[in-house]
């Protein structure tokens, strides 16, 4: 076989890979080919997970029970969907209910922060000798094209360690693990080293590529190609580092998102999604309100509500919402019983999640809790059902397996199934 490795552009390895994959660039020719067009449709799907860390109260958000002993002081207000009421702490979000769906019958049977978060991110209960990949890693694997320089799973953490967690991908492989965007700052090593100007930067990469060309004239293997590609990807990512800079957004829009951490991080999320990111997780902390649940929810949701509604609107205006699956989740909800510190405690027994966008019915509600919110009375689901639902919403058959070293590994918990009632 006559391999042409003479081309020395940055795109070299990538365009070749894309060509081999059957999707050649973004030209008209590609769109005219139905297979390629389908590939593009898949490529355009994105996911945004808003994680309300600590456990948001379902009673102060998606499933209010005003006037009962467990209900707390807040009213329920009508939304843009007739018949659906949510807490008065979410007035802005209420006007976007026609783009959202609610799952009100969640019972994850888990009241531990770590284990609850695990269930919600992997769709499985933690097991001693098995690790399951995060939703973000699964999306990174299924949705991210090889030529996308952005890591497939971006995790914007309020003030995290900034380390990447390739462990999140479990058996899918570290490549699909999360990359932390600590406090919205770009990942490490995106700037070229001090003392190397653009000319030297060009030259050293050219020298590296020359060395590789000479190597390829003698030998080659797929593994070596993947290695050289990471340098091309690194250089493209360096060029994209402006994506992480929200100061180029209009001040007016930034004001609407909010100047607080969550506002800045949501604005960054939208920039990243628009700029080609596959999966962004953004967190808002902290909802662990064992004391003064109601005061804290006024404060926290005051930030969340306006920012989240702005984010939905911004995505919608830019034509991204229908192809972006948006999920608002926590590790669990909060107890209906109000404790003596006016707090609510951990509660995985009967709580809610909101979602919308890609593949999700607009304005749907599924599942029901009883009058005081102490139990699910209709369409009970757990983390497994939610995981199936996300995958199906993104167009995948969630009953299928991943295969790793001959081992069939179900993409989602085989004991659960998608919540068809809210799927398009």
């Amino acid at each position, binding site marked *: 076989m006559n391999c042409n490795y003479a081309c020395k552009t940055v795109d070299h390895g990538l365009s070749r890979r894309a060509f081999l994959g059957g999707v050649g660039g973004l030209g008209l020719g590609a769109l005219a080919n139905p297979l390629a067009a389908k590939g593009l449709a898949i490529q355009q799907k994105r996911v945004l997970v808003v994680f309300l860390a600590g456990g948001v109260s379902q009673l102060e958000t998606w499933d209010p029970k005003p006037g009962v002993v467990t209900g707390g002081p807040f009213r329920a207000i009508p939304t843009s969907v007739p018949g659906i009421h949510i807490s008065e702490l979410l007035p802005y979000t209420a006007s976007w209910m026609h783009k959202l769906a609610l799952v009100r019958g969640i019972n994850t049977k888990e009241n531990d922060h770590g284990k609850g978060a695990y269930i919600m991110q992997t769709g499985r209960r933690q097991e001693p*000798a098995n690790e399951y990949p995060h939703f973000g890693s699964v999306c990174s694997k299924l949705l991210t094209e090889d030529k996308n320089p952005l890591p497939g799973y971006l995790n914007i953490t309020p003030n995290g360690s900034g380390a990447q967690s*390739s*462990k999140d991908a479990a058996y899918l492989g570290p490549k699909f693990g999360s990359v932390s965007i600590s406090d919205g700052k770009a*990942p490490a090593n995106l700037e070229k080293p001090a003392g190397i100007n653009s000319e030297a930067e060009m030259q050293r990469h050219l020298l*590296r590529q020359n060395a590789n060309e000479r190597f390829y004239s003698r030998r080659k293997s797929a593994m*070596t190609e993947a290695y050289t590609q990471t340098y091309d990807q*690194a250089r493209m990512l360096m060029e994209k580092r402006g994506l992480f800079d929200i100061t180029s957004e209009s001040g007016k829009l930034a004001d609407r998102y909010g100047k607080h951490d969550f506002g800045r991080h949501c604005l960054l999320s939208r920039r990243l999604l628009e700029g080609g990111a596959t999966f962004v997780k953004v967190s808002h902390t902290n909802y662990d309100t064992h004391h003064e649940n109601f005061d804290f929810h006024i404060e926290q949701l005051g930030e969340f509500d306006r920012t989240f509604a702005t984010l939905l609107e911004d995505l919608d205006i830019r034509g991204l919402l229908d192809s972006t699956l948006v999920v608002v989740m926590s590790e669990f909800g909060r107890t209906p019983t109000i404790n003596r510190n006016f707090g609510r405690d951990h509660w995985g027994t009967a709580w809610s999640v909101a979602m919308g966008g890609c593949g999700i019915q607009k304005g749907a509600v599924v599942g029901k809790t009883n009058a005081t919110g102490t139990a699910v009375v209709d369409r009970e689901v757990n983390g497994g059902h939610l995981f199936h639902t996300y995958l199906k919403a993104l167009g995948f058959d969630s009953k299928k397996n991943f295969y790793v070293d001959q*081992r069939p590994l179900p993409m989602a918990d085989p004991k659960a199934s998608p919540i068809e009632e809210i799927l398009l």
Partner: protein
Amino acid sequence: MFANIVNKNRFVCSFAIMLLVANWSLGQTLSQKIDAEVAKPIADFEKKAAPLCSDLEFIRRVTLDLIGTIPTVEQSREFVKSTNPNKRSELVDALLASPAHAWYFAMVLDVTWMERRADKHVPSANWKQYLRESLLANKPYDVMVKEILSADGVDAKTRPAAKFYLDREGEPHLITRDISRLFLGVNWQCAQCHDHPRVEDYKQDLYYGLFAFFNRSYLFTDAKTKQSVFAEKGEGDASFQSVFDPAKVTKSSGPKLFMRAAITEPKMEKGKEYEVAPTKEVRGIPKFSRRSQLANELARGDFEPFARNGANRLWAHMMGRGIVHPLDLGHGDNPASHPELLDLLAKEFVKAKFNHKEILGQIAKSKAYQRSSQVPKGLQDPKPEEYLVGAIRPLSEEQFAYAILQASGFTDAERMILGAKVEEAALQAKLAPQATPIINALATPAGQAPGYEARVEQALYLANNGQLQGLLAPRKGSLSFRLSEIKDAKLFAEELYLGVLTRMPTEDEKKEVEVLLGKKDVDKAGLIRDLVWALMTSIEFRFQV
């Protein structure tokens, strides 16, 4: 590390003969037998196979595999110059006999057995010291495994070996999974919940037979000292159901290794199971310990899976893939590429009293190991398991990091400061702080089997991080310092290519260097930095070729 290896020929000679004698049977060395087995499945193997690699390719390859770094420029030059017909074999023996081998192989065993888990109960430094001292003392593999499987962390002397259990939090399922993967070459992960749906050999009862050695064990933390040890109860069954079984029949297993007889357990009267009964404050000591039966039952020459897994992993270390591959998928549906070769190596490993150096040395001396990786004309798509050509295989994270330190001349510079008679430990103390960040930047996640995967974050680190750039700065003895002193472009190119890639530059490569050096107003220091970096990040440096 090792100084002037080829000059030590006379010293290692007698040692080499001893090794050879040990492996001679019917006049054939093990390496010759290896080559005969590798050739078996393919007609005219020798005609089709690639020729042996060059001396420079060999010294780089074997130095990386046996002491985890690349040779110095001086060592490479001397090796090429030497006319000793046995120089390859003598180099292998010298490397294996050097303390650098023990330092390196301790890292290999650490990564294999602990899989980069973060420290929990036993500090990594103590554990690595245990591994290193064991290797320096030529402790056999089966003895090490026995020590690891017997340690409970109570006795300070053997506590480092208890890291395997304690840093897995004494979790019986995790320990069962990892013992079967790492010491027996089988992955029974699926069998925790049901018989493997596709692999005939992976049965749930095999899993629970091994699990039963551990189901009574638990982590006990002393309230006063806060120290955790691995304790055990005197009662409790390893019972299980299959998630596939609609009838939900509960079965139970006593301690039993597959292919071995069940352990006979003494009947204990209810209430009299303990020497010391466990309470919240007191570590229980049962009269009969299930766990203590395992080490002797498993780490023994006549337990085939144990010897085969050990031999298979040594082969994979040298050759880039196992005879059974992946290494933990030993079962009937995934046959060995060369079953008789695996039998041979396992048998010889037992015969050598589990001295891993004999097996590594004999593999290194085989033609199979020494093949060029350049595909000969006329050979179409050779498969890796055919061993017709040398494998192009990635360096481990440790090999890569220490190769960077050697190539940049950081190691040379430190050795200059420390003096000619430097102790390995003193040198290693200088190298480790520079190697660790590189290893971390490339490493696989904690708790997952080590393996190579290219990720963009690694390229970003190697391209832009200040630590690596710092290694490229000139200091006395370093490569960029030496290059800055060389005026002649051809000599410059030789030093550069020998230093980084352990080979002489081609005419094209000399020309490239000459043109760049000859440019008007050349920033020589900057050019040197970029030339060294470019070769270090090239394929030829990242992979064994």
